[in-house]
């Protein structure tokens, strides 16, 4: 395993573990208000300090990890669930009307400034985690469709595909049984990248109040709360910011590392 992969896995695992542990244990109740203890800097009792309502920031970060990861995870799921079949279909019917239609529709989605549309969707259908997921997920569809199509097209020219055709398999079966396993590595790498973008997008939507709604803690929302208090309680802004940066960096490094690790040609070149 390479260095990027190890660092990336460690950072990502930290976020996932924090999220999972928060289901059974947090140092304090993340939602309980405790005004006398408000705005404490990090100390022995409140490891990351407290916010303006005296809530424990460490506990909020742990529970906030759940929101970030869940939103990004489902959004990537939507992108893969719809994008991969579309990409496979377009590649199988390369140059046909359906290929053209799928790719032009993709271009169109790409042309929309994603954050603007995410804001529009959440504004129309109401702010909340579910609508944030849909808004982020829609923009993952063309990404996966394009990656799959691009990777699948050269594979369609290969001999083992020809053999499968001769054996009587139809395009759908070939796509699932032969094409998909061969583009899987690429998809895993792309998924980690989209996952990290999803976390950033969720944070941005929550920051402007269109993501997860209180009392559900989310890292972006914590930053919005911190904004007016940044001069007297900078830790309120620093800590959620670091949580986002470390998680996103972890996922990006993991993506880079996985790309090298899963590409046998690079592995041979190294050894």
């Amino acid at each position, binding site marked *: 395993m390479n260095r990027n992969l190890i660092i990336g896995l460690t950072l990502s695992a930290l976020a996932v573990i924090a999220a999972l542990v928060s289901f059974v244990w947090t140092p304090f109740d993340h939602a309980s208000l405790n005004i006398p203890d408000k705005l404490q800097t990090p100390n022995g009792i409140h490891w990351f300090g407290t916010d303006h309502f005296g809530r424990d920031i460490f506990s909020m970060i742990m529970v906030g990890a759940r929101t970030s990861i869940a939103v990004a995870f489902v959004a990537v799921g939507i992108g893969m669930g719809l994008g991969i079949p579309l990409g496979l279909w377009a590649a199988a019917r390369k140059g046909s009307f359906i290929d053209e239609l799928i790719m*032009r529709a993709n*271009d*169109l989605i790409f*042309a*929309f*400034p*994603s*954050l*603007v*549309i995410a*804001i*529009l*969707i959440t*504004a*129309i*259908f109401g702010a909340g985690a579910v609508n944030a997921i849909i808004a982020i997920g829609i923009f993952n569809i063309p990404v996966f469709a394009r990656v799959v199509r691009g990777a699948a097209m050269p594979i369609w020219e290969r001999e083992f595909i020809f053999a499968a055709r001769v054996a009587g398999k139809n395009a759908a079966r070939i796509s699932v049984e032969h094409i998909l396993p061969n583009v899987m590595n690429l998809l895993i790498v792309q998924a980690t990248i989209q996952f*990290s973008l999803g976390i*950033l997008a969720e*944070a*941005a939507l929550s*920051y*402007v109040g269109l993501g997860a709604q209180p009392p559900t803690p989310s890292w*972006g929302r914590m*930053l919005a709360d*911190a*904004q007016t208090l*940044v*001069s007297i309680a*900078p830790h309120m*802004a620093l800590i*959620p*910011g670091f949580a*986002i*940066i*470390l998680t*996103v*960096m972890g996922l*990006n*490094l993991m993506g880079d590392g996985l790309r090298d690790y899963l590409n046998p040609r690079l592995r041979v070149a190294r050894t």
Partner: protein
Amino acid sequence: MLRYTLKRLLSLCISLGVASLLIFFMIEIAPGDPASFMLGLNAQPDTIAALQAELGLDVPKWQRYVAWVSGMLTGDFGTSYTYRTPVAQMISDRMWVSLPLALYALALSALIAFPAGMYAAARRGQTGDVAVMGATQLGVAVPNFWFAMMLVLIFAINLRWFSAGGFAGWDKGFGAVMWSLTLPAISLALPQAAILARVMRSALLDVMNEDFMRTARAKGLTSAQTLWRHGLRNALIPVLTIIGLQFSFLLAGGIIIEQVFYLPGLGRLVFQSISARDLIVVESVVMLLVFCVIVVNFAVDLAYAIVDPRLRTRE
């Protein structure tokens, strides 16, 4: 070149048409009727009907769509439901904040990324390269609104060099405007510069392996001269694509950054209009942003053809 341009122009028109349809009908299915929203809970049905007629909301959807699109083509974006002023006027006022911000950020991002990418490419595998790449890794992971808050904390609250928010206003002069947009532009530019530097580096590294680069070295150019005269021009194609794509990120990212710095730009207009259910303003601003993005991508496609003549002949 003419054929290529016409073909791109056709796809531009189709994209704009489909985009306008999507935006219009997305807003149409939004729950809540603007007229009843404006009149409040105790409004009588006949008052609501009268206001609907006044706002032109009582005609069929497709007629409203046609009116909206043909209005926009002539520069008439309709009248805001809440402010009762022309939407075009509101947008053009706000545009004087958002557009300079996006362009300023774009310029900053290119200014940071080009030297950084070239430096890293020239020192591939060395400490300088690793440091630049590490910095870009950090740059793409930082949420720009968080970075904006940190800039405010350091440069506005502690050092007091800049104001923590607000817009100077064009009557104070160009310098004052640029000064008030500096922190927002830096925070917008940072993640984009990181991406651009990475693209610049890898594009240059690809070009460096080309035969013509070796020839240029062989005829006696130094490596810096080769990079500058032959490498950069050829590396510009992928870099141009990313700059085109970034414009949309800068416009969209500006919406969030405007919130951090309380800038009276398009972003704040969108949020204010959303909370007031002033849908005609929302759809017009969103359409305008999409229009800008599609047109910039069209311009990038044309720029490609100029930079790389092969694209023209392939048509």
